[in-house]
């Protein structure tokens, strides 16, 4: 029995990516915990990745897949730096509530 080719249309991938991106964006805007904001950013990044991979499959090109590897590498590095920052902020202020971190206001 021949396997039925499952063809998922590109639009669905994009829709999922949009949903993920909006979730991430809303998370960044709404949440107060720096960790959660950080996770939301990761979500947005991966939404972007998903969109790129979807387009790559749509046009039958490998460039997109390769780009995503780079994005993931950068994301990993960013996590390392970002988490270190958050740990340091927590150590000095005993809190990671971003609303309390507004010394930079004009």
């Amino acid at each position, binding site marked *: 029995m021949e396997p039925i080719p499952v063809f998922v249309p590109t639009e669905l991938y994009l829709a999922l990516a949009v949903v993920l991106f909006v979730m991430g964006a809303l998370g960044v805007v709404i949440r107060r915990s720096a960790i959660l904001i950080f996770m939301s950013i990761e979500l947005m990044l991966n939404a972007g990745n998903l969109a790129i991979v979807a387009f790559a499959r749509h046009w039958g090109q490998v460039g997109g897949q390769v780009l995503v590897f780079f994005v993931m590498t950068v994301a990993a590095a960013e996590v390392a730096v970002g988490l270190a920052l958050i740990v340091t902020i927590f150590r000095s202020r005993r809190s990671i509530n971003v*609303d309390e971190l*507004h010394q930079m*206001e004009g």
Partner: protein
Amino acid sequence: MENLAQLVPLVIIAPLIGMLINLFLGKYLGERGVGMVAIGAALIAFVVAVLLLVQQTATGYAPVVVEIPFFSRWIDVPAAALYIGWQFRVDTLSVTMMLVVAGVGSLIHFYATGYMHGDSMYPRFFVYLNMFLVFMMLLVTGNNFLVLFIGWEGVGFCSYILISFWWDRAQKDKQFGTVGWKNSLAGRKAFIVNRVGDFGLLIALFLTFWTFGTLDFYKPGEVPIQSVHEQTRVIEVVRTDETAPAPASPALDEPHPAAMGVFNQAEQMMAEGATVSFGSITMPIQTVLTLIALFMLLGVTGKSAQIPLFVWLPDAMAGPTPVSALIHAATMVTAGVYLIVRSQVFYHYAPFASGVVTLVGAVTALVGGFIALGQWDIKKVLAYSTVSQLGFMVAAAGIGAYTAAMFHLAAHALFKALLFLGSGVVIHAVEHGYHHVQHLKEGEHHAEHGGDAPEDEEEPFDPQDMRNMGGLKASMRRTYWFYLIGALALAGIFPLAGFWSKDEILAEGLMRGFVEGDLVGYIAFGLLFISALLTAFYMGRQVILVFHGQPRTEAARYAGERAYGMRVMVNVLAVLAVGTVVFGFINVASGFWVVDRIIRPHVFADWLQHTVVYAHPANALMGVAILAVAGAVIMILAARSIYLHRPVVEGDKDPLQVNPQTEGLFALANARMFWDEIYDKYIVVPFTRAGHWLADRLDSAFLHDFVHDVLLVKTFNGVARLLGRPVDLGIIDGAVNGLGRLAQAIAGPLGRLQTGYVRVYALSVFIGALLVIVLLLLPLLQVMGGN
């Protein structure tokens, strides 16, 4: 033999090394070590000079130019065609000078070890003496005018530091007490007066360089060419070096000008009647030579103490006596005579300048001799005598008797050094006597008053005043005889050195007048003859005042020549006395009675003639000789009859002063003919006034107070204030502050946008991104709408 000439740098290097050793190690060596180093250096120089004499004799008197490594192109300016090498010249003239300088110099070094004994600055003195030898040797051995000039300035500097050697000796005045630093002032005077002369020499050198394009006397291998016009006076034309390319008749094959030294170029240009162009002015060569000779004469009057610049020499006697003997009698002051003799070609072709030289010399001889009559200071008498004798030499050089000038130079170096050193012994002895007397007196005092007598002010005692002497013959027998020999030589008594040399000058003067019908010759002869008589008189006066009669002070009674250090001093006198007796026979005038048959006549003239081509041997004039000696004897006897039985003590008048007929003359001589006063009144005081005027009026009042303070400072301040207040503060600061304020004003409301809340930033980024997307999409919508 040829190679011996290569030793010549040693005459400079040896004293230089001696000087450096004493300079850096002197304080560790002790008196004996310092003395040995200094004497050794001088003796090496003397030995080298003797070797050079041998070399010259053995090689047929060929002049040799020695170049030293690294300095053969010492000054090298191609743009100005200025090439000067540091070359030494070994010829009969320079060897003569080397022998005089090193010979007398060595003896005086010996003497100084005794004279300076116990001085706190003992090593320094010998450093200076050796330094003097270095520069004097540079002066006489240089093959160009520049090296000569360096030596000239160097000996001037050494003279300055040695006159001021005891710089802290105060000038005592009976009325005002201490009025300055006697020795320092004397040194300064010597230096400043010499600057005037050196200006003249410098101008002469500039002219020489402009005219000939070189300063070398002769190039290596070059021999003096005798001018074609001058065959008559020349006894024998000397072609010294057969192998050297002898310049034939100057007109035929003309060598490149710079290939010849200045003197041969002068000969050639005279033969051609060339002209020299100075920009817009063109002068015949003879005029130029006359100018050079006259400017050179100014230098000579400074260094050799001639009128009008002789005033420094008597003051220079403030220095230590060895210095007076070495620098201010025997060697340095004769540098001027050496310069004239070295430049004989210039003077030969400049008859007018030579006439001036003769007159300057003869008048100086007379003035110096006259002033010496009225001096009380034993060294001042000798100083003015030196001035007078230098006048003899210069006058001799002026009348073209270069042999006689050099002969008198060498002879004078011997007997004047003898006299000065003798006077040093006398001064030393009288000083010792004085201290001895003081010592005795103190003893008596203590005995009488039980030791608590008030210290009475030390009466100023002048050990150089001849009135404080007298009768020293008894206690200083050896010194007396040597001094007498020197004095008789100076007075020109047969057969001492002074007789031969002075007589030759007198005879040459008369011959010049007689044979060539030259008035200058007669004048020179007359003035010099009178000077010679005066010489005999003041030397007779001095010897009688110092050595004869009875001691006039206690100090003189206790003077003796047995103190420590005296022995070496008196021994040096002995050597010089022997030299004084013997030396004259090296240049016996031909035709002099029997003597010229026993001794070969004019050896010195023949020797010198190899270099000094215009020199000529002298013929004796028996009449002049007899007249001069007779006159001298009469003057000595006159001095004896005047001074022997009239003891003069300090404060007394001279017998000449008591006599109304000679009172004025003596006063004039005693006041040194008011030369210093005249200079003070007409030069020093106006100069000082001009200086004050320039300083107070021109500099302080006009330049400083007006030009600087009013014109410059006020204007500057005004401009600065204008620039400061309206321009800088108003415009520039306003603009800058305005920008700042503008930024602040804008930043105030904008700053409120920065809330510091991360979410606000994130939101604005999203909104911005949205806007960008919308803006990107809008054209697409339009395109789609268009379709």
